[in-house]
């Protein structure tokens, strides 16, 4: 018996969804771990954004954010509270993208170089990166987060389509 085109599409979407969730989860675990292993360096980079002027608040953000990212990454990998986690991840990514863009624009002016030639360590966990590559990466991750957010991230592991119920 041939599978209908609809079920084939559902199967492809199911695989793509699980891969998206694993990719996003693994990325957050990896980037969070890199920051958690060098928290002072992350603290120094965080300060460069000039968003928080109170040292205690700066400490609190720098100490919790890497581990929070790891926590969200593990939830996504395990398929627990996927939509809620995806919402948080999307919110974090959107905020990070805005502040990274703001800093890149400031550096573009100071360094007097083309926008895409601006390269700096944004504290994202990946070391110094060109801004255009970073923005592309964030856009992709935001896309994955939204994909999970619209309700396609629930299955814990990929499951083959169930057998049809006997009539």
């Amino acid at each position, binding site marked *: 018996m041939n599978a209908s085109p609809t079920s084939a599409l559902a199967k492809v979407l199911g695989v793509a969804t699980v891969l998206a969730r694993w990719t996003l989860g693994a990325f957050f675990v990896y980037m969070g771990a890199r920051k*958690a*292993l*060098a*928290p*002072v360096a992350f*603290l*120094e980079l965080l*300060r*460069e*954004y*000039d968003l*928080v*002027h*109170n*040292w*205690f608040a*700066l*400490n*609190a953000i*720098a*100490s*919790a*954010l*890497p*581990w*929070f990212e*790891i*926590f*969200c990454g593990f*939830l996504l990998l395990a398929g627990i*509270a996927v*939509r*809620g*986690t995806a*919402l*948080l991840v999307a919110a974090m990514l959107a905020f990070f993208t805005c502040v990274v863009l703001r800093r890149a624009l*400031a*550096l573009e002016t*100071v360094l007097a170089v083309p926008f895409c030639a601006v390269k700096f360590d944004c504290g994202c966990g990946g070391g110094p990166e060109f801004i255009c590559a970073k923005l592309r990466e964030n856009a992709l991750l935001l896309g994955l987060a939204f994909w999970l*957010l619209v309700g396609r991230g629930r299955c814990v592991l990929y499951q083959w389509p169930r057998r049809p119920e006997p009539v």
Partner: protein
Amino acid sequence: MIDDPAPRNQGRFGNLLREALVVAVIGAMAAFLANQLSPRGLKLSRNYFPGGTAPLTAQPARAQNGTNSPLAARLQANGLRLAARARAEQLFQDPRRQHNLVLFVDARDEDDYQQGHIPGAYEFSPYHPEKYLAEVLPLCQFAEQIVVYCTGGDCEASETAALYLKDAGIPADKIWVYGGGITEWTNASFSVERGVRNSGEIQPPPG
């Protein structure tokens, strides 16, 4: 009868927000706990930037040496002095260094120190002073001249370490901050020591 989807959508959105809130609260608690348990974790009650939380990029570029740099001005405001390369070299060659009367202090983290430091320099990361203070503080009290350095360029660990030592009671007039740091030192082809202090693994200058 046609079912109105608006209340159902509102309910789903409410559930989504509740789920996100639960994840955020549990995640934040887990994150602070993990930081507390991590041996590399930050101490929430410690001010890691005694010189202020203003970003370095908001200040003019930090000069590698010379006395007119913003770094020199900041140090001077705290009663400390900036050492140019010539001064650092002179103090390194000083025979008093053999008797710990001239002391070199490396303010970078442990990994960087192991990869190469000024020969004989003591390790003192100002971000983890509890690990080094018991050894370094008595030596600093005994020494006549102390040279603190880090990577150079934008690194500020040397300034933070110098301020820390000053606050710990070391007279400011014997503390020098070598602004060029290990980067300038290696670029000038001076020898560096790898591994622990006095490991004997001296990397001689090229040529």
